[in-house]
């Protein structure tokens, strides 16, 4: 690597405006924020900085970031850090509606301090993992997003450009308005190498299984060839699952991912069937019977999904074999106030708002959790060491 042999960092081209910020003319907070972006960019071989249109800040759950994270955010906020672009926030570790029997509210006070610091920096109190629902990105648009499922949606479904940023970097990009031009920001890095042919019909559970399998088995950027155009809710589950078991940030879906937002350079073809997937994950699939908790809403349910699920639940309520938890963004909650009040009277259905069981603490340990989400399956097992089985929503509701 000759550019590093003399011990100097590889230099990136900076505009006079960027130099001015680095020199502290807009305050030391912004200077330090930009310094981080530049240094990370140099380490990744970026040639320049690019302007972003939307930042999504993850890593805001107090359960995860603890006191150091809180102090870091408070220090930024107290020193006048502010977003310069539209910026959304990921779910917190508490149920913002405060009614959950599952999510522990022990860190309520601390989480509210985190939220206060974020809001002081003018970050929108969206508290959801669906930033694209609030502002759908355009093809080729540059973003700085944390939250792996959202990143995969941005690149694969919308054709926008973002790497998998960590929470702190997405925040610093939001403060400066810039991110480094490396990785998936460059068209030549969005190169599809593996074609995966899936010939069966895709539904929620097969989408999750296919995602888990891709994450575990495919390293390069894949393209999935499906027999019919998939529903957005299944794409969500597939991408979230692949981004959990692997580090995928872009999975091209043939005839769905906007053209010219990737380059085809396929040198490997794989065919996989529903039968293969069910065989591979046979021990993880729910075989029926009782469950103590069904978890739906990882990633969060959109307004449309939530609406259709509560309609379905109205009809099937008496058939439920265990408690069902639905996870939604605060925005969806505000749209369904009346329906939520009705649901609240029925103990068997619980709706949690602006939170995520993966980054929260539980009040109790459910014996068996069933979910249609491969991502929830992966993380609830790994982080909470719970017994989680996969099932389709139709099977769960009966």
């Amino acid at each position, binding site marked *: 690597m000759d550019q590093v*042999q003399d011990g*100097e960092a590889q230099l990136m081209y900076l505009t006079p405006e960027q130099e001015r910020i680095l020199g502290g003319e807009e305050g030391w907070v912004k200077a330090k924020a930009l*310094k*981080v972006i530049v240094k990370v960019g140099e380490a990744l071989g970026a040639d320049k900085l690019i302007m972003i249109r939307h930042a999504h800040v993850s*890593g805001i759950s107090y359960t995860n970031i603890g006191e150091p994270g809180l102090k870091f955010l408070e220090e930024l906020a107290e020193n006048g850090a502010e977003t310069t672009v539209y910026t959304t926030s990921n779910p917190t570790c508490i149920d913002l509606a405060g009614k959950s029997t599952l999510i522990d509210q022990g860190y309520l006070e601390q989480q509210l301090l985190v939220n206060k610091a974020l809001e002081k920096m003018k970050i929108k109190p969206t508290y959801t993992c669906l930033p694209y629902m609030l502002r759908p990105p355009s093809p080729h648009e540059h973003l700085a997003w944390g939250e792996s499922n959202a990143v995969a949606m941005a690149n694969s479904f919308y054709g926008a450009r973002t790497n998998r940023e960590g929470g702190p970097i997405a925040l610093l990009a939001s403060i400066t308005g810039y991110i480094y031009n490396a990785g998936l920001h460059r068209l030549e890095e969005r190169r599809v190498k593996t074609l995966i042919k899936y010939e069966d019909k895709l539904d929620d559970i097969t989408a999750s299984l296919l995602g888990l399998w891709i994450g575990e088995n495919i390293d390069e950027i894949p393209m999935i060839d499906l027999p019919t155009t998939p529903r957005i809710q299944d794409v969500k589950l597939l991408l979230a699952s692949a981004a959990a078991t692997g580090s995928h940030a872009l999975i091209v879906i043939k005839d769905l991912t906007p053209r010219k937002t990737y380059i085809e350079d396929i040198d490997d073809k794989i065919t996989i069937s529903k039968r293969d997937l069910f065989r591979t994950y046979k021990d993880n699939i729910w075989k029926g019977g009782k469950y103590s908790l069904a978890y739906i809403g990882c990633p969060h349910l959109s307004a449309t999904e939530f609406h259709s699920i509560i309609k379905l639940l109205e009809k099937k309520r008496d058939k439920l074999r265990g408690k069902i938890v639905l996870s939604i963004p605060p925005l969806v909650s505000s749209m369904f106030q009346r329906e939520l009040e009705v649901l609240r009277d029925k103990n068997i259905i619980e709706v949690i708002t602006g939170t995520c069981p993966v980054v929260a603490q539980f009040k109790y340990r459910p014996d068996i959790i069933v979910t249609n989400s491969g991502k929830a399956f992966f993380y609830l097992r790994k982080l909470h060491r719970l017994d989680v089985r996969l099932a389709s929503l139709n099977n769960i509701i009966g």
Partner: protein
Amino acid sequence: MRVLRAIRIDKIIVDGYCKAEAVIIDHKISFFGEVNPRTGRTSENIYIGGKTLIFPGTRGSTVGTYIIYGLKYYGHAPACMIVQEAEPILIAGAILADIPLFIVKQEYEELVKHVKKKEQSIILHESSREVLIVE
């Protein structure tokens, strides 16, 4: 003080003076989950505060950046860090916490070998292009 060996630095990420006893962690570190910022100890119970921390690089959750910042906050930050590879989690943490960070790529194995041979070895760096192993 006798210089035993000079090791070439490939890249300076965060510059600074650092003279401290060396500690080697021989695997990639996930700061989140493997390092306790309140105690400055790793899951192998190695104390890293005030040390020259030598490790191949980082892995795992991006919350790691906050943990590095937390080490500084609780007074357990390493005096400096020398890695073979630096990825965004580590770079962001080092800059935000003002912990000198150097990349030694080509001679990393040499560095580890020499530091391991003499446990009391001390690493010194002074805005130069070399890590000096001294006794």
